[in-house]
């Protein structure tokens, strides 16, 4: 492996991080929104969310990517690889996040909600002060778990021509016919990224615990 080869895998890591962060930042609140629609039993839209989550959980990421990238131009919407990848990854992770948030909401003690109601808190205040802090705490492990899975889902985007860690490693192996060294470098980089994420989770949890 040449110095450039190492550099190219690190560049791939930047793509992996960019795509993961973008889809997580968009997908976590989107998942919360979807979960709230179901939790609040909004007529019609509640059913739409159920259908959306089912379809997304059944659809492999590669399939979704190919559909968005190759099939949408048939309907006049031609996306570049990066937006197409972010769209697909966000759509996927939002469905899983929806279920994590929903689990947290289902476990939320109803009497607290009623108590908040009884002291006359408005709907948004009830959510901000009472519901959200608690479901965030309950949902955090599940959300971080989904984030690490999301990082590992990114190699699927190679199919539409984006070079992330795995693809960068594959390219080197294809030239040298010795694929193992680049994959070891790839593994190290993935580990580092996930490590940072887990550290972040620990910190948030410790801070929450300190608050009581």
């Amino acid at each position, binding site marked *: 492996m040449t110095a450039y080869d190492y550099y190219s895998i690190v560049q791939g890591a930047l793509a992996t991080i960019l795509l993961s962060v973008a889809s997580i930042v968009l997908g976590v609140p989107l998942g919360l929104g979807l979960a709230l629609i179901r939790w609040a039993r909004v007529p019609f839209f509640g059913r739409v969310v159920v259908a959306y989550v089912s379809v997304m959980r059944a659809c492999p990421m590669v399939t979704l990517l190919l559909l968005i*990238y190759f099939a949408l*131009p048939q309907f006049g919407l031609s996306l570049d690889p990066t937006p197409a990848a972010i769209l697909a990854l966000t759509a996927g992770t939002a469905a899983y996040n929806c279920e994590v948030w929903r689990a947290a909401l289902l476990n939320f003690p109803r009497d607290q909600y009623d108590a908040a109601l009884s002291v006359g808190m408005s709907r948004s205040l009830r959510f901000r002060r009472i519901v959200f802090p608690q479901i965030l705490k309950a949902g955090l492990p599940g959300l971080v778990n989904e984030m690490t899975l999301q990082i590992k889902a990114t190699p699927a985007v190679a199919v539409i021509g984006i070079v992330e860690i795995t693809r960068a490693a594959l390219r080197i192996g294809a030239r040298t016919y010795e694929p193992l060294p680049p994959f070891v470098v790839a593994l190290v980089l993935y580990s580092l990224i996930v490590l940072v994420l887990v550290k972040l989770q620990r910190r948030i949890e410790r801070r929450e615990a300190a608050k009581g």
Partner: protein
Amino acid sequence: MAVHQDTRNASPATAVSARSRQRIRVSLALALAALTCGQAAWAASADEIKSRGYLSVATEDDYTPFEFMKDGVATGYDNELLALVRKQLGVTVKQQVMPWSGILPGVTTGKFDMAVSAVLATDERKKTFDFLSPTSEAVTFYATKKGAPIKAAADLAGKVVGAETGSAMLTDLKNFNEELKKKGAGLKQIVEYQGYPEAYQDLALGRIDAVANTQISLMSLVKTRPDAFTVGQAIGKPVFIAWAVKKGNTDVARMVDAILLELRKNGQLYELQQKWLGVTYKDMPQSIN
């Protein structure tokens, strides 16, 4: 009985490729469904290309020596040939470098005007694509680990052989298997891979006994790693290699073909063949559709 069935027993790596192959098949079906209900007039005509100012092409990134990445730059036979075409085309070329599995679907759905890749012009593919004048020729060979007991193509009976999924070499391998069966015993198993690097790696690890690919690619493999592999014999008939456009997109084909034929006349195409492929093919026909 089909031999190339469940590759899951072969190795974890192939299990993954078997799964993603299924995904791609499903998604292709969906893409085709979209194709039939949407309007497929996206493939641009010569006028449209001139007015929008670019031709969009897709190239592979891991098919040495035809196309691969070196120091972040797409290089190899097809890329250097494309560089010569760019000089005379009159419009810019937007090139997307991506894995093989996305290239032909990208051309059929109109995302790209042309596949600038070593596409084997098989009869099956001629139903969906129009090919330009050929850029080289290919014969499917097999390669083994150095010192393997396979001395001739017939020795592959009872062995496990790998090839790239959706490739013409895989079709050749399947046909070869049928011939073997007529003579007695067929291959033990055909393992399909997403790309050749994985196949070579499994060959090096001894998970498979041979890999079927074009002679040119296998020669390049052996040139890079003479300690590990040897090239065997032919298991298919010669086929032309050419760039491809969507069936009926003759405008684009003609535009580029004029330049390719010019490059034959002035000998630059043959120089590139010599440089990258180690051989020249001087008696290729002008049209193979």
